[in-house]
């Protein structure tokens, strides 16, 4: 059960030459790179430094007994056993389906590795620091503590997730209790 890098990866427009607003300088000097992806109707962003790789949805995920439903289970990624969390279930989205575009983003925070399921991956973008907005409390359906900020990307709002908060042990522990 080996996973190929996601087939969509080759199609990413990492450097959008057509975009006259694009500032190459930013790529390496200012701002940060974010991986954007879709969950339901909204676009979210993850700090690219936390992203390890993308894999397609595996054939089998071993269910973990007595875990909340958003923890789908564990997979074997080249000999490493990783938990998989479905962000759509985590954020209690109602209707979604797992199709050919469903992707697992393998993220790494310090030495911890986890896969998160999202509807589809969109792009890798540069955001200047002054593009970032403070997240108003009521702006999204999400708990404000999971949102690092908002960004305006060519007229579209991107919700930048604070992965560390989302995967904080206290957070997961609390969910264990709720089960």
């Amino acid at each position, binding site marked *: 059960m080996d996973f190929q890098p996601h087939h969509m990866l080759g199609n990413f427009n990492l450097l959008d030459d057509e975009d006259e607003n694009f500032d190459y300088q930013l790529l390496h000097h200012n701002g940060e790179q974010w991986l954007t992806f879709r969950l339901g109707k909204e676009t979210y962003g993850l700090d690219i430094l936390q992203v390890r790789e993308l894999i397609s949805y595996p054939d089998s995920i*071993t269910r973990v*007994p*007595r*875990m909340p439903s958003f923890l789908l*289970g564990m997979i*074997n990624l080249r000999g490493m056993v990783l938990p998989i969390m479905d962000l759509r279930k985590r954020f209690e989205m109602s209707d979604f389906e797992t199709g050919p575009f469903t992707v697992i983003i393998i993220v790494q925070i310090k030495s911890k590795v986890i896969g998160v399921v999202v509807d589809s991956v969109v792009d890798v973008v540069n955001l200047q620091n002054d593009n970032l907005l403070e997240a108003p409390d009521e702006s999204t359906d999400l708990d404000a503590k999971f949102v690092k900020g908002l960004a305006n990307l060519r007229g579209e709002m991107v919700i930048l997730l604070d992965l560390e908060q989302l995967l904080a042990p206290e957070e997961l522990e609390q969910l264990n209790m709720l089960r």
Partner: protein
Amino acid sequence: MNFEALPADEFLEEAQELLQEIEESLLLLEEDPVDQNVIQRLFRSAHTLKGGAAMVGLSDLANYAHEFEAILSQLRSGTLTSTPEIVSVLLKGKDNLSALLNPIVGNSTSSSTHSTNENQSTDQLTDIPSQQEFQKSDSKQDSPRIQKDVYLLHLHFDQNFLEQGQEPLLLFRQLEEFGETTVIVHTSLIPPWTEFDPQKLYLWWSIKLVTEKEAEEIDELLEFYRGKESELLIEKVETPAEEEKEVQEAHQNMLQQISAGESVDPLTFAESTKTEDEGPQEAVEIPKVSQTIRVPVSRLDRLQNLVSETVIRQARLLSLNEAIQATDDQLGEQFLQFVEDNEQAVRELQDQIQQVRMVPVGTIFSPMKRVVREFATRHQKQIKLEIYGAETELDKTITEQIQGPLMHLLRNAMDHGLEAPEQRREIGKNPIGTITLQASHQAGFVVVEVKDDGRGLDPDKILAAGRRLGIVAEDHHPSEQEVLQLIFQPGFTTTREVTDVSGRGVGMDAVKKDIEALLGNIEISSQLGHGTTMKLKLPLSLAIIEGMLVRVGIETFVLPLLLVTETLRPLPKQLKRFKNRGELIDIRGQYLPLVRLHQHLNIENAIEQPEEGLIIVVQQGSQNYCLLVDNIEDQLPVVIKSLEEHFVHIPGIAGATILGDGSVCFILDVAAILN
């Protein structure tokens, strides 16, 4: 405490390699006596050896290597041509170098006994340069000998010696130029650290000097180092060459004495040992070059990981075989043959790497002797520690991780288990309490026991304490074994009311947790008035364990085989139901609690009737339980993958493994499920 006992391990390793090289080069030299490359190589090896020896303070070895090097230098310059005779003398010289190294490498007997030998051989070596005299060099008596005297110097320098810019090492070097020295450091004057002043010199030295020089010359040298409060003494030891050995012996005894913490007048010792002379010393046997290599544990870990991967792939091959056989019978047959051969090799590989990681459990037993001794003196108890099976081998990591828990159990046994001597005498026991540490191999795992012959655990008192603490309900009447298990409850004896109970259990929950984290088991048995036994059952390795693959509903899990005592399909009549105690299964008259795994793991569509599924009897603590599963799929070695580092701690799951088809399978944490 002497210089000779301090060589760095790196040097010892290097020295053995160098000596090996020297020997090989010498043999090459015999074949081609004028090969400059070989001579150069020899010279370099000898030179490196000399430098290294001097650096770690092995002056005997350094001096000898120096002589050795001098001859090689003559070979190099051509003033001496190598003949078979020269080569054999050099080979002998190399053996002597090994002999000088061996007491340090092997059993650390003091090297002073060897210095007599070494004197001979040095003489032999220095004789070589003149080829005419070379013929005589075989017999030591024939070689001319200059009269040498032996002096004992006792050097107490002024405490402010260092502040005055003086340096004892300078003196030692100068003395070395006079002749052969053996230096002993005395640490008896070092004050407690509270009064320790790093600027001051607290050490003093005794030096044995074998030299041709007169006492006056030595005294002149010492003059430079005298200070206000210094006390520098020179004693001439009247020893003709034949009696030198006695001094050596006295010296050696003194060394032992000093390392035991006392300082002794060397001369009185020489007197006292004179009578015990045991005749001529036999030639030192030269042990073979050590056949071991040192490898960092991290490298072994990596190797272990690779082997683990191979074990997983082997399982993969097995499952692939089924698919192949389904399509092509003949090919499948051939493939199966291959897979089975490979299986053997992989098993062997796994066993071997496991072997390499094994250390005798005695390595953690030995420090306990000291702990027991100290405890006994401090608490006026008389304790005898008996150790059995110290040679039993266990994975290095496991050995390290059980050290803490074992120490805890030992302290408990000493503190709470054993009674005071008077009390023991009153009740007719031997006033000396015995604690037994015992390790042994049992099928696929290791058992370590800590046993005392003390007062034992009192179930009534424990139960009373349990009720008082609210752990045990008033109307519940647990079995004796259940009562004993109470001591593993967190906080069981942390309250004051419980101190009148036998007290055992301080931190016992931690001990239990540590053992269970290793996928092991801890069992108590106790007889009131006769003692307590704690029995630890541990897997041989942390990386790969023997597992039983069981199916529950559509899911499979691994049970550590170490915990499984038997498996059976019960008859309906074996199933009993008791009020308050739930379902029990009657196994040969023993009623064991039935645990439906599917209920605990929340799995649907699993077999619910014990007589339709299978019962796996597992041991948890001292109690056996019946786990209900649908079926047993396989029994296999499983590679443990830790889950802890990846965000989720899952109660009831000890870890995961990867099966032959690449899927993830969980290893059940039996202890957590049953609690």
